[in-house]
Each structure stands twice: as C-alpha cells, then as structure tokens.
C-alpha cells in the first residue's frame, strides 16, 4: 500500500456509490429544473411555480409552520437547556438521555402518538374539554402542525444548545451581581449576547429541519395538507399525473432557500468574530 494508486482504489468504491446516490440525483434536479416538459429548456418551471397560487400557498404554509415551530422550539429548548445545567447531575443525566431518545421519535410513529393525545377524541383534547378550557382541537390544521413540529424541534434544540451553556462562567454572574445587575440585566447584557451565535446556529438547523420534514405531515394528513415537501412528493409519486421536472424546480427552490439561510448564518458568524476582535 505504499503505492498511492492502491490507496486510491480503496477510496474509489466509496466515491462511486456516494456519487451515484447523493451527487447524481442532486445534479439531475439542478439540470432538469430548467427543462420544462412543454416549452423545453428555460425558466418555465420556475415561472409556473411562482405564478401559481396553489404552489405559492404551499411555500407560504411551509415557511409559516417552519418559522413558528422553530421559534417556539428554540424558546422552550433555551429555557429547558438552561435549567438542565442548574439541576443536580442525576436528574440532568436522566432527562438528557431521555431527550436523546425522543430526538429519534419523529415521522409516522409521532403522528400516531399525537392523534391519540390530541386527535378529535384524543385524551388530552377530552381532558381539556371537560375542564372547559377549550371547545375542541383540530390537529389537522396549521396550528396543529405547528404544535407537532414544535414537539420534534425541542429535543434537537436542547441537544444543540446544552453544550453552549458551558461558555457561561459562574464568575460573570457573580461579578454582574456584585456590580448591582439584576437577573434581567445579566441576561440582557451578558448571557444572551454570549449565547447568540449558538442560538442563531440552532435556529438555522431547526428551520432547515422543519422545511424538509415530510413524514410527519404526510402521515398526519395523508398528504392533504399543502406544504412544499408534500407537493414535491405528489409530483413524482402521485396518482394523477407526474411532472418530475416541475418537482425538480420546487426542490431546487427549497435547496436554494436552505443554502441562503446557511450563507447568511456564515456571514453573521464572520461579522460577530470581526466585532469581537
């Protein structure tokens, strides 16, 4: 194995399979999104999507659900992760391990669990109804989807934010208290600014996670709720008519938006480093 070509031979199978099942599909989408089944090469697919109220609604619902679930998930994760760092290690170890396990609890099983909990005859729905707190709850609406998305964002948020709290030194808190700062002032001027890169980074990951999620919403509404991943899937595997090129354009819009937020994140990171130095 002193000859490099033999070493290259070890890498080759890996690159071949990765290329065929990860890079090639992506390249196909990028290429064919510019190839319309009716008018040939050009921007016709993108024009069709951006001119159709149906697809625009899917994009709007996707953005709304992702944004709200990411904000709610992040806030709950922030409060939860901070308290996790302040309790005794036995309780912390247990809840962190449990959070780890629930981070795999998504998709179809989660949709069923939520139907049992919050469906029309769900036990929590009935309990809240009997207490007179709600009239009824419809899980199969935008609000219901935001709730279930928030649920699967929480474990991810906690696991991503938890390590960031180690950067907060107890000394700073004591110093701030000595100088007469209250809890609110400490968080406003010290805690949150120190945590902000981790918060923004986690928010970006949660947003991308929600934008691409398909299994949960598909299982819950049998593909009847209009969001971008459901539309993409329907265009390539629906029962009525298939338009893979249009699906490619919609998929490219999703990928482009994710790339954009990642670039903004990188830019913010660079800027914050610049300010600090």
């Amino acid at each position: 194995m002193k000859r490099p070509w033999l070493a290259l031979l070890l890498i080759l199978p890996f690159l071949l399979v990765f290329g065929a099942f990860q890079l090639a599909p992506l390249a196909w989408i990028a290429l064919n999104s510019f190839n319309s089944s009716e008018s040939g090469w050009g921007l016709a697919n993108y024009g069709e999507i951006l001119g159709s109220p149906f697809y625009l609604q899917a994009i709007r619902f996707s953005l709304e659900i992702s944004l709200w679930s990411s904000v709610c998930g992040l806030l709950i994760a922030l409060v939860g992760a901070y308290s996790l760092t302040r309790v005794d290690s036995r309780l912390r170890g247990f809840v962190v391990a449990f959070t780890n396990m629930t981070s795999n609890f998504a998709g179809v099983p989660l949709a069923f669990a939520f139907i049992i909990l919050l469906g029309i005859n769900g036990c929590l729905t009935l309990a809240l109804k009997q207490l007179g707190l709600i009239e009824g709850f419809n899980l199969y609406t935008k609000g219901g989807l935001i709730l279930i998305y928030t649920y699967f964002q929480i474990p991810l948020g906690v696991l991503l934010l938890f390590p960031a709290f180690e950067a907060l030194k107890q000394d700073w808190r004591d110093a701030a208290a000595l100088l007469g700062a209250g809890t609110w002032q400490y968080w406003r001027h010290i805690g949150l600014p120190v945590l902000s890169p981790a918060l923004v980074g986690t928010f970006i990951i949660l947003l991308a996670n929600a934008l691409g999620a398909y299994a949960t919403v598909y299982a819950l509404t049998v593909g009847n709720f209009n969001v971008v991943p459901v539309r993409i899937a329907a265009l390539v595997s629906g029962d009525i008519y298939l338009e893979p090129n249009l699906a490619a354009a919609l998929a490219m819009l999703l990928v482009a938006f994710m790339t954009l937020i990642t670039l903004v994140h990188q830019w913010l990171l660079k800027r914050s480093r610049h300010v600090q130095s």
Partner: protein
Amino acid sequence: MSRAERLYHRLVVWLLFLILVAPLAATLVYSLATQWSATLLPAGFTLKWYLQLWSDPRFLAAFGRSLAICFGALALSCVLILPAMFAIAYHFPRLDALMNVLILLPFAVPPVVSAVGLLQLYASGPLLLTGTPWILVFCYFTIALPFMYRAISNNLQALNLRDLMDAAHLLGASSWRAALLVILPNLRTGLMVALFLSFSFLIGEFVFANLLVGTRYETLQIYLYNLRNGSGHLTSALVISYFLAVLLMTWIANRLNRERT
C-alpha cells in the same frame, strides 16, 4: 443558588420531561387499554394488542424486511467507509477537508429532494432499482454516512495512526495486516457507537421507503402507515414496540460511549 431558584429549575426540567413524555405515555396507555374512546380513562387493561401484533405474520415479515435493509445498509457502510477513511487518513490527509464538506450533503438535502432525482435515474434501463429493496440499502448508506464518518473520524484522530503503522511495519507486518489487526480493533468502540445510533434512526426511515419502494417491499414504517385505518390499539402497540427497540439501541450506544471516555 437560592431555594426558589433551585425549585424553579427543577420545575422547568420536569415540565420539559412531561412535554416530551406526554405523546409516548398516551400511546403506552392506549396500547394497554381494552377500549378507550370518548372517555377520560380507558375501560380496562390488557396485553392482547401486543400478543396480536407479535403473532401477526405481516408484522413479522415487515420487521424482518426492515432489519434486512438496515443490516445491509450498515454492512455496506462499513465496507465502503472504513477503507476510504483509512486511505484518506494515511495517504491523503488533505482530502479530509473535502470529505467534511461532502458529508454535510446528506444532512442538508432533505430525502424528499433526493428522491426526485433518484426516481428518474433508477426507474428504467440497466439500473432498474426503484421498487426493489436494493435502492434503500444504497440510500440508507448516504444518510448514515455523516454519523458514521464523524464517529470514526473522532476515533481515528485520537489514535496515532502513523506511529501505530510504523511500529507494525517495524515488527514485520504488511500494511494490510497492520490495518486489519492493529488499526481496526482500535476503532471498534467508535464504530459500534456509530452503528447503534445509525440503526436507531434507519429503522425509523419513512420518506425513501415510501417514495422509492412503497408497498412493493413493506418495511416496518410502511406497515405502520398502512395500519392507519385499522385498530388504533394495534398501531399503539406497534409504536411502543418500535420505541422500545430504539430506546435499547440508543442506551447501548450511550453505554459504549461512556466506557470509552
């Protein structure tokens, strides 16, 4: 910390736990209930749903198929990733930066996006793979890759690869022998952690399975989805059985990880 503060933090942590456990607890109770509809508490408790599930040949077949695909994908991952990572670490350390970008792709590109291209590329011609379990084995390799690569890479960096190889060479071992008998055993823990973690999310994969193969090769998740119009108690028993399996896998991975450090 004051008493009030301590109480507040304990309360928040328990509340977080309560939120996360609520859907699971409801499913657990439902799977054990004889009947539970339109009342606050179930009528009685029974294990019959579990017995019915675990004696259903369709469920056992779906479970077997899921296991076959997951094991196949993990075996393929080991065969492809381990030699490549060894060659990169030993011969082309500069490629590591490129690899770190490549392994982000399966993370960044949602499965529903990849599926669009896969359905067109492998639906006809000599490479007719859609509708067969083979395509899932290859796709699951790509989604397991970031986790496998990270875990093994951390382990490789902790080893002194070059010194270990030099020592083995000095003692007269060929490079092949050194890689197999010295390096590989040292990577065992990192590899096992990666395998258990990958297994626990591969067995829950639905998007590729549904879009690329569907009912032609019914995996556990597809079976669960197809049960949606049947008895909710049976579905609950399946969800709980599935979660217990995932729990066991992540628990083993955590234990292995702790032993290492």
